[in-house]
């Protein structure tokens, strides 16, 4: 194995980190451009990459941050920052998911209400003395959560 000196290792660290971060940035932009990702869910990713780049490139800044946080090995501050962003992003997903479920529920209520009104209308049209036409879709109008 080649023996590399300390500064070479650090340089490799920086290069690898920068390439990876830039890749994520470009990937995110490209996904938005292709409409696979909505801006509102991409912003945290982009902010994360933008915050990490200076930390990787400028050791002084990193050392400052590490000292402020009481971290002994400065690159760990990069890991911590990345981790905190991941936590934030995951949390935002939880919130987004909750909103989506809530909206699902409201859509369901609307559909149920419309079906009821539709049936009432059909009944009126058929006339009160005639049999109700069979529902076209079984199981779709029960409120049984499946």
């Amino acid at each position, binding site marked *: 194995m080649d023996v590399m000196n300390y500064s070479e290792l650090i340089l490799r660290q920086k290069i690898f980190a920068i390439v990876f971060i830039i890749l994520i940035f470009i990937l995110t*932009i490209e996904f*938005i*451009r292709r409409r696979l990702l*909505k*801006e*509102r869910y*991409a*912003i945290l990713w*982009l902010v994360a990459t933008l915050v990490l780049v200076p930390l990787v490139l400028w050791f002084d800044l990193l050392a400052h941050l590490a000292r402020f946080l009481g971290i002994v090995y400065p690159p760990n501050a990069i890991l911590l920052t990345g981790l905190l962003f991941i936590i934030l992003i995951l949390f935002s997903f939880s919130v987004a998911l909750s909103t989506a479920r*809530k*909206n699902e529920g*409201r*859509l369901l*209520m*609307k559909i149920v209400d419309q079906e009821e009104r539709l049936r009432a209308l059909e009944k009126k049209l058929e006339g009160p003395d005639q049999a109700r036409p069979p529902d076209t879709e079984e199981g779709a109008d029960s409120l049984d959560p499946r």
Partner: protein
Amino acid sequence: MHRNKGGTPEAGDDMTDNAPKKALFIVPAYNECANIAQVLDDLLSVAGPEQILVVNDASEDATLAVIRRYPVKYIDFPFNLGVASVLKIGFQHALKNNFALAVQFDGDGQHVAAEAAKIAEAIRADICDVAIGSRAGLSEHTSSLARRVGSKFISGILVLLTGQYISDPTSGFRAYSLAAIQKFARDFPDEYPEVESIVLAKKFGLRVKETSVTMRPRQAGSSSITIFGSIYYLVKVILASCIILLRKY
């Protein structure tokens, strides 16, 4: 007394393309129970009820109940989607009902129905495809300092991105031509559309012009803008606008 924007057909009317186009007024309404009645009265003084489409964006107050007292057309959203979705659906409604002109008219009472003629005229005269009614000189009476600074900042961004200067880029008082309606009914920004739609319009090759109009200050209720909200707004709008420029349309 009840003057239609383009006139209902009468004997002797020219029914060819030369007849003045009737406008569809798209009115987004979110928690505007205090203002919507005034707004609808104002609109009904210049247009017929079949020209007015109010969209209740899942208001939590009595807005829907007030709307239903009027003979206007309305849509009720099951959950809050935002102005952007209201407009997109409004454009689709316009196409389905053969409107060649759409006017965006806020439900909060800031827009003045009589002023709509100014922006509608720009469309009818084929001067542009999107006519923006700008507040004539933002004053302390109509918006806060933060708003005005933000507005100027966005104007600057738009100049960078599109080369065109719009003095009131966040104004929602707009008229759209048939070309614009057709494009936007299929493709429209999903949030905070005022600024992004300008960039998108230019990308579609539509002409955008501004006209000075007067507006009223916000009547009842408060605007829900926070510091975080403003930052998110700016970031989101700038990001989305840049990406619009990157896409192929």
